[in-house]
């Protein structure tokens, strides 16, 4: 259901771009207006989301400790999985963001029928890691369209990426890996019954969208070639805020750009913002030092208590009879204190409603 809907949505989007450009000729709209809107949306959107998260307080130090705590000097602390210092937290976050440390924990090797086997968790980790890294590299590679001459590190990355020297233009490994990895993620979502059960349209849509983006990109580079000089003229125009629409850019380019723009617009409103959110996750980015340093809750407020004095009033006689010391011996205590236990007295504390 969700999957079919998402697939249809992506196909429809492609069709919109095709019709818009090829049949109606709205090149400026799809080549200039849409990209500007998309870039603006993703920037404003993500900044807004991150600010919203950042503004909401972290009342408690709720680090998830995934290893030995820092306690006695002769006990080895797990400095990365249970950090107690800022540098430890930076290390933990780096492992988390660059290598998907937590996802990696799914990898449990096991002996099955005498052979060492791995649970499917390994593939999730591997595909996720491959997908995110290749996506990043592909994104960086695209910088050659937005700088003239293209920056040295981008060229270096390109030559690394195409080191296999297959075909002309040279095959970029990352593009291929990206497509394979994202297809696996889609396959997994459909094939693993529990994952399919929890999946929403919002989970399939970005997958189909990214598959479509990668496919159009690959088609454009290797098969339905577009005039790369004109494309660069357009992209340089965009970046220099003097947009032009050169002649002779194939419709596939506009479809690609439209799908990418859709992704950008969709990004801040969807689960894709996890890219920003992961940095702010309080179970990961806090040091486990809550007994060493007091963590401040900005909205901490006084609550209604049952102070010792009231407790003693409730039980004074019983305590005295049991030889437990009291503050005010019953001989001197006011008459009210002699009432039986269980009476509720008025609290002097600030009364507050149940929070």
């Amino acid at each position, binding site marked *: *259901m969700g999957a079919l809907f998402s697939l249809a949505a992506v196909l429809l989007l492609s069709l919109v771009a095709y019709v818009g450009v090829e049949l109606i000729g709205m090149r400026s709209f799809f080549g200039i207006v849409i990209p500007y809107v998309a870039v603006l949306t993703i920037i404003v959107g993500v900044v807004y989301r991150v600010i919203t*998260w950042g503004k*909401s307080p*972290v*009342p408690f*130090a*709720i680090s*998830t*400790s*995934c*290893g*030995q*705590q820092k*306690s*006695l000097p002769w*006990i080895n602390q797990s400095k990365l999985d*249970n950090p*107690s210092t800022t540098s430890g937290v930076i290390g933990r976050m780096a492992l988390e963001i660059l290598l998907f440390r*937590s*996802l990696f*924990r799914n990898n449990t090797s096991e002996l099955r029928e005498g052979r060492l086997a791995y649970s499917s968790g390994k593939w*999730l980790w591997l595909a*996720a890691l491959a997908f995110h890294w290749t996506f990043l590299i592909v994104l960086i590679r695209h910088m050659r369209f937005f700088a003239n001459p293209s920056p040295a590190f981008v060229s270096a990355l390109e030559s690394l990426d195409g080191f296999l020297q297959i075909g002309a233009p040279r095959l970029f490994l990352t593009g291929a890996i990206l497509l394979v990895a994202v297809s696996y993620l889609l396959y997994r979502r459909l094939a*693993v019954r*529990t*994952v399919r059960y*929890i*999946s929403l*349209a*919002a*989970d399939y849509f970005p997958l189909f969208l990214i598959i479509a983006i990668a496919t159009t990109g690959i088609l454009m580079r290797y098969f339905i070639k577009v005039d790369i000089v004109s494309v660069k003229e357009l992209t340089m125009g965009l970046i220099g805020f003097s947009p032009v629409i050169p002649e002779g850019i194939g419709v596939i380019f506009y479809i690609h750009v439209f799908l990418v723009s859709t992704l950008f617009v969709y990004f801040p*409103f969807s*689960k894709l913002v*996890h890219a920003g*959110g*992961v940095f702010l*996750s*309080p179970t990961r980015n806090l040091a*486990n030092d*809550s*007994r*060493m*340093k007091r963590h401040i*809750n900005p909205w*901490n407020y006084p*609550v209604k*208590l049952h102070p*010792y004095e009231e*407790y*003693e009033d*409730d*039980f004074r006689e019983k*305590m005295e009879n*049991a030889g*437990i010391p*009291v503050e005010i011996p019953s001989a001197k205590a006011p008459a009210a204190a002699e009432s039986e*236990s269980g009476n*509720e007295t008025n609290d002097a504390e600030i009364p507050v409603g*149940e*929070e």
Partner: protein
Amino acid sequence: MAKKPTPEELSKINYSLPYTGWMYNPVEFKDGMFCNASKPESLNTVDFPNARKWSVKDEDWNLPENWKEIVLEAMKERLEKYRSFRLFMDICVRCGACADKCHFFLGTGDPKNMPVLRAELIRSVYRRYFTKSGQMLGNLAGGRELTLDVLKEWWYYFYQCSECRRCSVFCPYGIDQAEITMIGREILNLLGLNIEWIAGPVANCFMKGNHLGLEPHTIKSNFEFMIDDIEEITGVKVDPSFNRKGAEVLFVAPSGDMFGDPGTYTCMGYMMLFHEIGLDYTWSTYASEGGNFGFFTSNEMAKRLNSKIYAEAQRLGVKWIIGGECGHMWRVMHQYMDTWNGPADFLEVPVSPITGTKFENAGSTKMIHIAEFTADLIKHGKLNLDPSRNDHLKVTFHDSCNTSRGMGILDEPRYVIKNVCNNFHEMPEDTIREKTFCCGSGSGLNASENMELRLRGGFPRANAVKHVQQHHGVNMLANICAIDRAALPPLMNYWVPGVDVAGMHELVANALVMKGEKERTQDMRLEDLPEKEGAEDV
């Protein structure tokens, strides 16, 4: 029961509903899977709103008319107060890494016990009412109307989560279902929808200082029995004090240790240890509860109960605090207490008077875990131990969820146990330390009426115990948690008969050679020690 003529037909019974997605399957309350509803008296004691008599299986829960408003308003407030809540509502990608990490899912197979789906129960409502896409696209964007069915589903599944945080270890974004469950329960509590197994202890603890509702004189008389037993076993008379001003240390333990076995054996262990090293310490009858069932209710209730500990430390004028063996108690002490009720600037950084070790790791809360304290004593050779007195035991150690994933006290208890026992065997790697499996009864779910739930949830843990029982002959499951000591015995009894349950300090007490003690013929359970070959006088 309907007539079911052939086995084949039986197998045809299909429990899966037609595929309409999980959002539209209303919850079915299955016997043995939920706890009894809270009683109005319990809620009234702590001034909780909407206290009333209600019953889980009733169609009508007698909710206040504006319950939807209350829920949505409460969600809004918490989205603004907790970054965790807002973030965890937003960033889940439903990768499913957490799905098979939950002991309740592993034991029940109920898809709504997958942490991701348990979170989606409330996340779907969040999307519908608090995100633009959900408001506009509704179901298409994964949004869901808040209905009575949805609310009941929350109740059923938020009280089928033991807040163990195992999912959070495996989540690539650290999404912690415990956090979501806690907030979910907090919202349910605004409608008077608690369970009595939590509400009752909370009321007790508020008025009487401990979950069990032990009054001061009862506490003392319970201790007298334990003191007698210690004398019978060791020949040494220990002399604990209560509410004594001017002691150096306040000791706070879960009240379960003062009452039911096998907790009492651990409690006797605390007393023997402190007596032996001559620690100047006192118990408190006012702060007689280390645990905090308020924590399973609402942040505010947890704070109200927790406040007694610092208040009592201040009243008695102690220098610092030691805490006993308890799981969720230590999540609270470690991650919440100082924030709620600190700063404890009237206390001093704990320094062991026996070894001189300064516990810098508790520099702010001024409270240390007894495993830290005892491990330090042993490391410095301050205890005379005869581990052979535990030779009749083959021990394994169950890490409690909260102490492992909300603190990280993993090696201290192991060090202590290995020094007091000769036979120690770890359970398999995937089931211990930060990956430990819950006892199945945490977060206030250790009632009797939900025994099936507890047995299912505890199955992954029991299964690992069974493994070490078969391979190493393990017969004792050690732990540092009072709920474990209450919940694991029935779990073992059902799944792994022949394995007993003990707190760590019971094992310490068995091995502890006290000054002036008689030759021991009994262990802490008053059971005869096996005859020793040759004299092993110490």
